[in-house]
């Protein structure tokens, strides 16, 4: 440790023989991290809300199917799921589709990562949404129905508006998780932030890993903080006067 040559300026140096600078690599990485996380979050939010809602429906068959979905995606590690999408799916599909996936699909790593991370996160979002709906008093469902709302209307106008307010705090941590979990995409070759860090510390500047890792960690901390503030803002905006939400601090 004694001979460690500190060099915080490394970030501004040129990557030997490429004409590019280290900070550019990190910015590219950050771009892919944000793109992967946000795209996956859109999938997770839409699909997760849908599946979480279906799990609370009176139709046993549909609810059972939604439960199976959640259990499947929750009990396999994310990295293994990405491998299944990336390495296994093209092999088990009909030959033409498999070949298309391997050769012609645009940005195969990115798209696979978005879908894989999106589905993985959707199962967790579904659990939160379901918990939110179940936390509402049963009388609310009755009250909606007693006014003549159909099942769909009862969910649309009565249950979901309150359920979503209740789940904002747990969704905040899922939203943060999607940023953190996007790092796993490096395993299938997405050049996101942690990928860039590994590349720099491993091959290009092995002498100064601490500086690079510190900077990357700080970027992740800033992302986590921003997400936290954003969600706190949304929580404040959607607060219902006179209603003390059980979930928030």
């Amino acid at each position, binding site marked *: 440790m004694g001979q460690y040559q500190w060099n915080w300026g490394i970030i501004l140096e040129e990557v030997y023989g490429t004409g590019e600078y280290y900070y550019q690599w990190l910015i590219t990485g950050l771009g892919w991290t944000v793109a992967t996380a946000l795209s996956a979050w859109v999938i997770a939010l839409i699909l997760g809300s849908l599946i979480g809602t279906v799990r609370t429906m009176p139709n046993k068959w549909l609810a059972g199917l939604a439960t199976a979905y959640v259990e499947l995606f929750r009990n396999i590690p994310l990295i293994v*799921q990405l491998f299944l999408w990336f390495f*296994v799916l093209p092999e088990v599909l009909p030959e033409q589709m498999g070949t298309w996936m391997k050769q012609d699909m645009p940005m195969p790593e990115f798209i696979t990562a978005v879908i894989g991370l999106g589905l993985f996160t959707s199962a967790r979002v579904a659990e939160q949404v379901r918990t939110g709906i179940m936390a509402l008093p049963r009388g609310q469902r009755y009250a909606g129905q007693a006014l003549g709302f159909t099942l769909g209307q009862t969910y649309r106008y009565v249950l979901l508006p309150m359920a979503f307010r209740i789940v904002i705090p747990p969704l905040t941590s899922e939203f943060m998780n999607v940023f953190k979990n996007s790092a796993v995409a490096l395993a299938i070759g997405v050049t996101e932030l942690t990928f860039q860090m590994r590349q720099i510390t491993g091959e290009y500047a092995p002498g100064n890993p601490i500086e690079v890792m510190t900077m990357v960690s700080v970027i992740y901390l800033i992302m986590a903080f921003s997400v936290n503030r954003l969600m706190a803002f949304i929580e404040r905006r959607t607060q219902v006067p006179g209603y003390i939400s059980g979930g928030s601090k």
Partner: protein
Amino acid sequence: MDFNFSAIVDSKDFLWEGLKYSASLTLFATFFGIVFGTLLAMARLSSIKPLNLAASAYVNLFRSVPLLLVIFWFYILVPLISGVQVGADKSAYITFAIFEAAYFCEIIRAGIQSISRGQVSAGQAMGFTYAQNMRYVILPQAFRNVVPLLLTQTIILFQDTSLVYVVGATDLLGAASKVANRDYIPVEMYVTVAVIYFTISFVLSRLVKRLHTAIAVIR
């Protein structure tokens, strides 16, 4: 395509070694994670300001960055600091214990905070010191309340150990990936590990659920 079952059977010993490593990493990190986590939780709830701040910083730091990043941190730092090439398999033990402590801390803290003020006062009234009160009154109740959450976190931890594959450790996924590349059977290998992870996690989570209901009944 043909699913090559015999290739899976041929590699079963190697996969078993990988699974044993995953399991031992999980158990080690759970044990030390809970021990560190408990100390951290007490520090976070302590009225000694610097202690409190340091523990909060620790927990917030590790909960804000990807586990994968932390795995790289220790993979690179441990040899740098110790001067010994310990290898990916060993450095992962340290990584996971330190990382998971932050998560266990938050669960245990919630457990301690769920104990009513009255219990704390009752302990003090009997003349217990702070440590005795923690040891005999608060922690036993806190742990009982959060046992299901701790076990659920352990299942998540078990799944997360698959990330050590990225630094070349031979856990279950690492073993499968090595076989997949050697014999070119990615479909068989990745489907097999997916089934193994699913079966173990699913069965354990069912058991935790039953335990949870059982505890709820006792209370």
